[in-house]
């Protein structure tokens, strides 16, 4: 393959094989990245910004991000939640420096321009100058210099924002299946904030986005799952693309008996060591079926989050892009306001499973951060996505890449690639 090294850079057009191939340049090209931000995060999408329980009282605020742009989620004096850019309308400096807190108004530290909790500019120092000198021109109209305000949708205990006036209503945007799954986790009982984990992963955001659409890797790269019988290739599993590939969900029925069984498929995976015994079985066996459906699973709500229920561990994985080669994962763990002491402890224990030190997730950031430079070194190469065939329909198996193909069907349509 010596000729490959002297080939001209690849043209930015999709391989002829369609969605069974993904060209590697989309993981590093700065123009593609900029277009993704415009098309998706700053376009007609609903972006996750936080949970309502993070801003419990009027004046409570929390910093968040939409795409790469810092925003502030703040509860107004009348109890509604506003989302404004964390960027002073004057010179663009960061207004809010604290991660979370409480304030009467939003005041920029640089020149003390002061905004109300809706982002309206209330006042600025020396508008009329000092000692009769300086100051703003007479025609300066404060009403034209507020913070950029995003449209907000609140669903159950979750808060979403969009830049576009043309974005569909939140319910139309998610579609009925995602809405049902979201409501199952966030709309039946008031939420309780359990805490955050924050993680910096040096890979393109799409590699992570694909990773959580990839059940094929789960039992192979996360041997903890199969070793302790949590999720196995021989278990019940469903991969369901939705809304033309934009969103998806996966779920399985939890089977505590699986640990005691072996089958042909599980024996094929060499990582299963049946002599390993878990000491504190409570982590994986004393699960409370709090939704009365015996299900566990996760769903992606494009373009920002994977919402996951792992037994009784509930978490929103918020993917915050940080340039073509990096993204932050902000994990917000939550429970319910009426959780008793036992449930609180169970959620904490089970949160060892997912997160930056998670038994079934630490490998993801590890492999993706090692993958990024390799992918960047061969922008002309292609990924192969043929597991489970060439289609994009729902499949009841883990041995499929249908969700990734479905995503790229959506992606190509929106990006016009």
């Amino acid at each position, binding site marked *: 393959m010596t000729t490959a090294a002297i080939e001209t850079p690849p043209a930015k057009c999709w391989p002829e094989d369609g969605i069974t191939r993904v060209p590697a340049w989309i993981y590093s090209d700065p123009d593609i990245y900029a277009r993704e931000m415009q098309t998706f995060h700053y376009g007609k999408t609903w972006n996750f910004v936080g949970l309502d329980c993070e801003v419990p009282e009027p004046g409570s605020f929390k910093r968040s991000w939409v795409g790469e742009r810092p925003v502030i989620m703040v509860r107004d004096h009348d109890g509604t939640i506003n989302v404004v850019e964390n960027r002073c309308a004057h010179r663009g400096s960061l207004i809010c420096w604290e991660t979370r807190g409480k304030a009467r108004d939003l005041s920029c530290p640089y020149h003390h321009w002061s905004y109300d909790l809706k982002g309206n500019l209330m006042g600025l120092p020396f508008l009329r100058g000092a000692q009769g000198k300086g100051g703003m021109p007479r025609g300066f109209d404060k009403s034209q210099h507020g913070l950029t305000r995003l449209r907000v949708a609140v669903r159950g205990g979750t808060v979403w924002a969009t830049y576009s006036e043309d974005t569909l209503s939140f319910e139309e945007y998610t579609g009925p299946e995602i809405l049902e799954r979201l409501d199952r986790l966030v709309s039946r009982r008031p939420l309780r*904030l359990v805490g955050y984990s924050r993680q*910096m992963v040096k890979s393109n955001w799409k590699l992570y986005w694909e990773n959580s659409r990839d059940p094929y890797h789960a039992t192979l790269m996360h041997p903890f799952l199969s070793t302790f019988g949590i999720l196995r290739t021989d278990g019940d599993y469903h991969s369901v693309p939705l809304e033309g590939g934009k969103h998806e969900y996966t779920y399985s029925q939890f089977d505590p008996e699986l640990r005691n069984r072996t089958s042909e498929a599980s024996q094929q995976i060499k990582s299963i060591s049946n002599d390993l015994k878990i000491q504190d079985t409570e982590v994986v066996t004393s699960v409370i079926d709090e939704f009365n459906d015996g299900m566990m699973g996760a769903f992606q709500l494009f373009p920002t989050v994977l919402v996951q229920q792992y037994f009784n561990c509930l978490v929103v994985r918020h993917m915050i892009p940080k340039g073509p080669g990096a993204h932050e994962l902000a994990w917000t763990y939550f429970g319910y306001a009426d959780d008793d002491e036992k449930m609180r402890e169970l959620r*904490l224990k089970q949160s060892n499973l997912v997160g930056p030190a998670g038994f079934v997730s630490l490998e993801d950031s590890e492999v993706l951060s090692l993958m990024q430079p390799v992918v960047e070194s061969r922008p002309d190469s292609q990924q192969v996505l043929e597991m489970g065939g060439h289609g994009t329909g729902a499949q009841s198996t883990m041995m499929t890449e249908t969700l990734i193909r479905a995503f790229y069907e959506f992606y190509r349509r929106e990006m016009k690639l």
Partner: protein
Amino acid sequence: MTKATASRAEIRDFYDDCAAVLDAEDLAAFPAFFTQDCLYRVISRENHDDGLDHAPIHCRGKAMIIDRVTSTREVALYQPRSLRHFISGVRILSDDGDEIRSSANFLIIESLVEQEPQILMVGRYLDRIVREEGELRFRERSCVYDNYHIRTTLVIPA
């Protein structure tokens, strides 16, 4: 006068011994530093200071520490690394003759293949230490890290 549980020098040695086990990746020896009913956690300063309970590593009881060690040694997949702990400012905050409350700063440098060594984590230990059968043991260890982010992955306990 109640008798002291341990001297500052003894606590310092205890910290160094525990860190040496982690630096040597002798994880099997790690659980022995804890009591049966211990709480061991690695928690961000953000959560700790805000009264939020979530910790990326949260082990209630020695059995969960053993599970974490087993999982890390036998199951988890991660790139080869060397860790070095640097512990300073060991202080005894209280000692009622039964339990010591102590603290120290920690700095953990991680060396990965193809990369310069870098700070994995910096923070402080907040500990409750007791003596069992003559040996010091952690009844509670909170590794409160100052890092805003965990860089890539947290594999080995802090």
